[in-house]
């Protein structure tokens, strides 16, 4: 989610709009009478349906579901899952449309408001948001979208930030801005300009947000340019000391022993899975559960046996770390 403070219903008070992991945009309206925000409600389309991409949490069935009900004309380029949403007057008709970020496949979508802010009527289908004539697509998938007048031309530009490979190796996330190049009328976004390069996750200490970047643009130091405040996960592997030949040998022994125990555990899980093969759903679940529980003591014993080995290994070869923080990136355009 990325909370956006905006007067969504044009009542003169600031509301909070955000997309969350359930796959839909929500808004917390300001209660002008009592002076505070109300609990959030889901923003619906003109037919009273939830605004989604494809994946969404079904509250009635308590499970994840998929739909193509909202796909753009001609279909969606890939299965999407909305986790970020902002109010953005994309067509410059005076009301808030919604720009939606796709956490699963990296596209950005538009949901037009065909009504007004006081009486919104959101379209029933999504549209792909284009930049420089092509659909916006972050190969690391979208962490969030942000509306900000980056170049001071009184028109909102679009910031898109990336998730990156959330775990393990692979390229991390970055932040780009698409400037609105139109001078009047609907938004016409330009090519991406990099604000924060994608991370290569090569650090030995937490020096930057590497994955799941969530930026906010604000002039923190009062020098007239927009700085970035960015939440996200730093991923780093502490530099280890130089190991002796005997220690290197021990590292190999420990890794082999841990791998063997984990392989044995995986084999037990596979045995449990095979116990359900060929059975109907309910009977299969019952058979799997019984087989799994019967093997649980052995599996737990393998985990217990691996634990001290992992601890010894971590003393020789530091483990990779992954912790979330919030950083300030000071814009150097104006200096102080």
């Amino acid at each position, binding site marked *: *989610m*990325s*909370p*956006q*403070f*905006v007067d969504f219903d044009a009542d003169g008070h*600031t509301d*909070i709009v*955000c997309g*969350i*992991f*359930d796959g839909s945009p*929500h808004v*917390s309206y300001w209660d002008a009478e009592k002076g*505070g*925000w109300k*609990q*959030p409600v889901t923003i619906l389309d003109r037919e009273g349906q939830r605004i989604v991409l494809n994946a969404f949490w079904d*509250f009635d069935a308590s499970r994840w579901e998929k739909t193509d009900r909202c796909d753009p004309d001609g279909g969606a380029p890939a299965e999407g899952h909305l*986790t970020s949403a902002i109010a953005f*007057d994309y067509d410059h008709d005076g009301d808030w449309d919604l720009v939606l970020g796709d956490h699963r496949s990296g596209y950005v979508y538009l949901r037009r408001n065909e009504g007004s802010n006081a009486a919104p009527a959101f379209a029933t289908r999504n549209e792909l948001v284009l930049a420089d004539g092509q659909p916006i697509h972050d190969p690391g998938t979208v*962490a969030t979208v942000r509306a*900000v*007048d980056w*170049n*001071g*031309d009184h*028109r909102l530009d679009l910031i898109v930030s990336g998730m990156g490979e959330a775990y393990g190796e692979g390229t991390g996330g970055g932040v780009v801005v698409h400037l609105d190049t139109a001078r009047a009328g609907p938004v016409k976004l330009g090519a991406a*300009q990099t*604000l*924060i390069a994608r991370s290569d996750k090569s650090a030995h200490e937490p*020096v*930057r947000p590497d994955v*799941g970047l*969530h930026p*906010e643009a*604000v*002039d*923190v*130091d*009062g020098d*007239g*340019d*927009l*700085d970035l*405040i*960015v*939440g*996200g*996960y730093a991923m780093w592997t502490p530099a280890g000391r130089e190991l002796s030949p005997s220690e290197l040998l021990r590292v190999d022994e420990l890794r082999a022993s841990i791998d063997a125990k984990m392989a044995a555990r995986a084999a037990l899980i596979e045995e449990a899975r095979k116990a359900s093969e060929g059975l109907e759903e309910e009977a299969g679940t019952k058979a799997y559960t019984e087989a799994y529980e019967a093997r649980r003591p052995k599996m737990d014993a393998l985990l217990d046996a691996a634990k001290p080995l992992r601890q010894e290994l971590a003393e020789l070869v530091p483990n990779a770390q992954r*912790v*979330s*923080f*919030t*950083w*300030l*990136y000071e814009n*150097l*355009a*104006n200096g102080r």
Partner: protein
Amino acid sequence: MTTSSLAAGLAWAAALSLAPALTAQGTKFAAPVLLKAGDKVLGKGRLYPSPAAWDIDRDGRFDLVVGDLRGHLTYALQNADGTFAAEQKLKDVAGKVLDFGNW
């Protein structure tokens, strides 16, 4: 780090597309530094912390609101010296925690 009320005003206005002309924004930034709220790092340990700037207490200085994947919001008020106070949970009009995480 210092923050003027003018800067806060620019931030609000920018969010509402009413910004007075800022100078053209560059794309070069200083190396990132961790932001603190009270004696802790802002948003540390939260599930995908997502910050937003807004003047929660209407004192003319922007404060920092941090959302997370679970749909919870905290805020850190900005002090007069530009530092941020410890995070607090953002509550609704009835005093209950504002909770977007309803799945």
